[in-house]
């Protein structure tokens, strides 16, 4: 038979919430310290797989460079950003001997990576020995958020050995304008 009296005081159900809320927290990228009993075999296996895959990717990368971009014909163009206060990069168009070879649109995440010191490999290709004209057109937002479009050009002399160019967008504190500089490595 069911009780007919008023229900007893409700059991302290909130104690469960208390237990759930009082667990320690970890920072977003933190890994939970392992307990000795934790089975780590799959984790160990995954670590081995990661390392082997990285080594495989490294070897493939080197093979690709040797086969597809041999040093005698290799031309690579990189892009870096210093500070970027006077210019918010939106896109870059790279032309090699009058032919567009790269048209790149940037995400905020990529821009942030560039601002923090990252260098982007913008183009990797092959050219014959001799002179070549490279034109880079940068579009984005300049001082005071205005639309901004600037180009820079360079004639390079490709000889034997790989040629590396770095397109640098640098803030000029004198003119309070962005400067676009090409550095040959």
């Amino acid at each position, binding site marked *: 038979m069911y009780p007919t009296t008023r*229900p007893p005081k409700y059991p302290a159900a909130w104690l469960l919430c208390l237990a759930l809320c009082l667990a320690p927290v970890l920072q*977003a990228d933190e890994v939970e310290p392992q307990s000795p009993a934790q089975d780590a075999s799959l984790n160990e296996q995954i670590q081995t797989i990661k390392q082997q895959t990285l080594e495989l990717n490294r070897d493939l990368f080197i093979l690709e460079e040797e086969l597809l971009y041999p040093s005698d014909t290799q031309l690579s163009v*990189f892009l870096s950003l210093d500070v970027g206060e006077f210019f918010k990069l939106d896109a870059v168009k790279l032309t090699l001997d009058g032919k567009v070879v790269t048209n790149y649109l940037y995400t905020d*995440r990529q821009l942030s990576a560039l601002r923090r010191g990252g260098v982007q490999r913008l183009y990797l290709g092959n050219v014959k020995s001799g002179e070549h004209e490279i034109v880079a057109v940068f579009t984005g937002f300049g001082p005071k958020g205005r639309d901004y479009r600037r180009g820079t050009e360079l004639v390079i002399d490709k000889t034997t050995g790989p040629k590396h160019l770095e397109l640098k967008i640098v803030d000029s504190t004198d003119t309070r304008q962005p400067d676009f500089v090409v550095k040959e490595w």
Partner: protein
Amino acid sequence: MAGIFTPALAARSLLALSLLFAGVASAAESVQALRYGVSLYYLYQGDYFESLTELMVGQELAQLGPHQDNAELLRGGVSLSYGMDREAEQIFQALLSEPREGVDRDRAWFYLAKVAWQRGELDRASAALAQLRQLQQPALVHEANYLRASIALRRGDMQAANAAAQAIPLDSPWYFYTAYNMGATAAADQQWQSASDYFRSFADEDLYSEELKSLRDRAYTASGYAQMAAADYAGAQADFTQVRLTSPMSDRALLGYGWASIETEDYLAALSPWQVLSEKPPVSQSVRESLLAIPYAYEQLGRDGLALHNYQDAAAALEAELDAVRAAIELFQASDLQSLLQLEVEGSDEWLFGDDILPLSDQAPYLRHLIASHEFQSAMKEMRDLQRIDLHLSRSAQRLQVLGEADDEQQLRWRSVIEEGGRDALEQRYQQLLVQLDAVEQKIASAEKQDDGRAFADAERRQQWQRVERAQQLSAALDKPQQQEMLRLYRGLLIWDDSENYTEKRWQAQRELAQLQGLAEQSQQGLAALDQTIGRRRESGFAPRIAVMGTRIDAQLATVDVALAESEQGLRQVAVAELEAQAQQLSRSLGQSRLAIARLYDRGSVGVSP
């Protein structure tokens, strides 16, 4: 107590990443090797795989310049972030056992401490932290103090934890994480007031990130329950009201606010938050709890009719929910988990939390609860890592196919160059150029030696000279003085003319010589390059390397498949166990509601009040 990740601590910002790699490179100009900069570019986007690949290629090809030593430290740090603590540990130990110039030893010790902490090796972590001398990066100094405090908390040494925590400034996120965890430890020791004091550390701070705001919501919720345990219900309500309604913690806070009211027998006040809660889908434990708590409050108010009605609604909702959870269990037991979860494998290697990884399936609400557990998070992360590796390997196989085709095409071209006389034709052209070059050189030398412009004579002028000399011989033989005089004058004119043009002709000849020299040099270089390439290709063809690479990729894909299956199985077990626990809890709640209905009907036979 086991630590948990929660959606509330969603890592949508790059805060953690920026802290880990603070001080690696502050501006593009500090990068002195392009490949090192490219590695940073990927790293700062959370793409650890590509970042490590660039570093490893740079190390293999010695292209990291002055960063060479520091790059190894960076590789250790990135490996740690990529979940390769074993590799990271080896790197740091090697760096510390064989000191190299340019390597920040303090950072190596710091990372080593972090690896040990992650493995739960508290003594080793402490020993590594004790080695720190002058850690330069403030963010790492703060994290080191956080680690010290965390280790002390694990050992139950609150005093040492306090000392370490006090060294963390308020503007560091580690301050708040430390404060929270100290609060949790105090609460575990039933030091309720002390716990609340720690949880309320956030009170006056202007928090700058969503991550910290979420942590504050969590802290106030925890503080509210700690106050309830201390029987300070007004204090608990004050804490619960600090939690944002948009926060994932709001369910627990609303529930707690209601219970605090119940404890003071203010049943009407309890109803408001619970009714807000009960309007939500009954997927969270707090909402389910509110379904039973509302009729309980009505009963306490003597409104048995409303209580009965609400218990009936609760029973119906809980029953439907139980059916849904059972269906989810069947689905998780039988379906392909990878397609069921549909984890986003593109993008970065960073592990995202909460809604960022919530699949868009009918089971999403149950997964929301599931992913709050660290165990499930870890299992899902492992599976996603393997899926991403599988993707990398599939792309590697495609890249290798392209390489194979390119190599075949190049082989054909070389064969035509070698076998169809291409190289011989180039050699012949080069020899012809050398002959021409020799002729021009002799012409110039002869003209300069004799100071005679005749050396530069073109074909027409040479014919003129031949005609004059023949005519002079004839006229001498015929003894015709008048004609001889005319021919002498004509000859003088030619000499004078050649003499006048000598400088220009010599300049033209020298220019021709320079052009021929340039052409000959180019031909020679071309021929040398061709010979070098032919020689190189004969020595080491790419084909064997491509074949070996293909075998490695196939073998690795097979290994990943096996690991993926194992990972999926583990994840399935965790998911099903969690859903079964939910089903049990729902069954209990359903039983409670039915019992209450029966009780009220029983009472109703005596007379249920409306």
